[in-house]
């Protein structure tokens, strides 16, 4: 594994992915705020949640790049399109598998069946995060496609 390469491009890909998700949120295309969702797992302070979440999101993206590198090594190739394909798989897994069960994993997220509680008041994302807007899956997929493509393209260039 080319560790310096994957660390460099992992960082770039994480920043681009976060920019796409936050940009689409800022433009009103979705209400999904990954930083707020992640940060509120660690703190109940409204003002601190997003800054904490941005750091966690970037670090998570960086760490996830190592998994991508392992897959590239196993495949014996790293191209922008193989990276994008991995990103698509990851996005679908996040939307279909992770989002619906997030209320069970998140300490401050409400449950659709029981409703909000004093310590669990955050709106759950629902299937494919559609609760946060019908365009949420689209931008989630786009962000992950960009993430994977940058990793695949960049990793190939420096290998």
């Amino acid at each position, binding site marked *: 594994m080319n560790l310096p390469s994957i660390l460099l491009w992992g960082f770039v890909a994480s920043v681009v992915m976060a920019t796409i998700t936050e940009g689409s*949120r*800022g*433009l*009103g*295309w*979705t*209400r*999904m*705020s990954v930083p*707020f*969702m992640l940060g*509120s797992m660690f703190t*109940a*302070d*409204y003002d601190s*949640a997003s800054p904490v979440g941005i750091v966690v999101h970037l670090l998570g993206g960086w760490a996830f790049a190592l998994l991508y590198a392992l897959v590239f090594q196993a495949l014996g190739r790293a191209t922008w399109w193989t990276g994008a394909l991995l990103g698509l798989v990851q996005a679908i897994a996040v939307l279909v598998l992770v989002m619906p069960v997030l209320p069970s994993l998140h300490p*401050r997220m*409400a*449950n*659709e*069946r*029981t*409703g*909000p*509680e*004093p310590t669990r*008041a*955050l*709106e*759950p*994302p629902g299937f494919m995060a559609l*609760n*946060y*807007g*019908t365009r949420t899956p689209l931008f989630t997929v786009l962000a992950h496609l960009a993430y994977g493509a940058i990793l695949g393209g960049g990793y190939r260039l420096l290998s």
Partner: protein
Amino acid sequence: MPQPSSSTPPAIGDYGIIGDCRSAALISRHGSIDWLCWPQFDSPSIFAALLDRDRGGFFAIRPTAPASVTRRYLPATNVLETTFRTDTGVLRLVDCMPVASREQQRGTLRPQHEVLRRIECVEGEADVEVICDPRPDYARVRPRLRRRGALGVWYEHDGMALVLRSDLRVRLSDDHADLAVRARMRAGDRHYVSLVSAFGEPAVLPPLGLHAEQRILQTVAWWEAWSAQCTYAGRYPDAVLRSALTLKLMVFAPSGAVVAAPTTSLPEAMGGERNWDYRYCWLRDSSLTLQALFDLGYHGEGESFMSWLVHTTRASLPRVQVLYDVYGEPHLPERTLGHLAGFNGSRPVRVGNGAHGQLQLDIYGEVIDAARAFTVRGGHLNRGTRRMLAAFGDAVCDLWSQPDEGIWEPRAGRRHNTYSKSMCWVALDRLCRMHDEGHLSVPTARYRRVMDEIRRAIETRGFNDALGSYTDAFDGADVDASLLLLPRYGYADAGSPRMRGTYARVAARLGANGLLYRYHADDGLAGEEGAFGICSFWAVSYLAQVGDLKRADAAFQHLLTFANDLGLFAEEIDPATGAALGNFPQAFTHVGLIDAALQLAHERGVHARPDESSPAELTTATV
């Protein structure tokens, strides 16, 4: 189609207001929220039945049977309580937009915005109905509401979510455009209805029941603690505190800006075109509002406003715009909303405000006077503020001789307004004083020379010997009510023959039923507006300044009779009927009330006002 109230349309004065220092809601006597803009004061409305009863949207909680209604604010708070008495029982509705201290906010996720309503039956039994008919984007959107199980009823549109939750059983209409509840309540029954919004992030859904009760109690405690800081010791403490609480609702806490009113297009002349959007921050109104709050012992708002002002004017220094939005955005194009019928048919409904492009020279005086008030009360001017104020002084020296639109921002063009010139004099006077006190450094010799020029111009061209009065404009023969402020800012001695003559002229020309119109000159608009609330209070202040406390007190008491049952004033009052006119509630009028009460208390020696403008020091002038 559901209606916001079952009887005749409410008058402007039939509304009460709740808020959270970010946005505000107007609630009718019939328990209907007819005006709400989220996420901030000047955002597109969620409910706008105020401006179009049929299609504007509303959120009502009310008895189904005819009821007599009484209202009050819980003491020293902006939590509204409406009591409905029907033939069979008594229902009590409590409305608030929850606020909490920083300590209380820490450790809990709270919604960005919430309207929390509690309905309880305190006697007998009665049927209650809840109708929520949101029409976002000034009623241009007819939403489709969706159920989400225990999470409530949702509406989602362009990055915004509205969520309504209740412990009553909610029923959606057939087209899913509105929801309704009908329930029989018996003595002791208590239910909560919560409407929250989220913009650009997942919503936070606070629980109902005891948790909702706790939010109401926290809100009551927050407002009580704020009210307890009031140092006013004069007469009419309830009216003064209600005015202070109303002004606090106009402060946009995230930035420190102060809006003139939370509404748009409530007509100054019923059925006419004098309908304006006041949901912005006029530097004049904001400065006067902060002075009023300063005088009552509230200093924190001043620091926030100064910070907002420095940030807002940085790009345009030394010029300033008349008004900005709450985040300092200067571009506020005025447009009409042709699809809305207007309050009582008063069209057009306008959003944005074309006055932002006007030149109103008096605002330099008002802003700098507020800065001086800030320093007199121990405030410290940081480097940015000092630089801003010095730049204002230079701008005044360059601009004072130009014609301007003036304080009343008519659409009829510019002229040499006497009040504007006097406030240029005030601006330079206050800067010289702050220089002498060591707060900043300005070229005082130049400023004092210009002050002399201004005074000479006012005393020769702004005073009409034949009338024995200052005039509204240079070389004019008419008056406007702003001339009563010349002593207030220390430009003139209230007891001087010139001011006594001016007061007599203003009272004779502009007075009606104990009220004052602001002017009678042609302002380029059709229709006749009402008497201007703050001008009427200026007359009280003037009488107090000349020591005529008996007349001042009587006039003040008379003016208080024009407030609504909650103590709220609109911008204007119809002298014939006493009805409220114009945007509501209006910060300017409540500023006038506070200032008049403080002046009365000061003259009686029960509430000292810091000496900011002693007329005795006006010897730099040479007429």
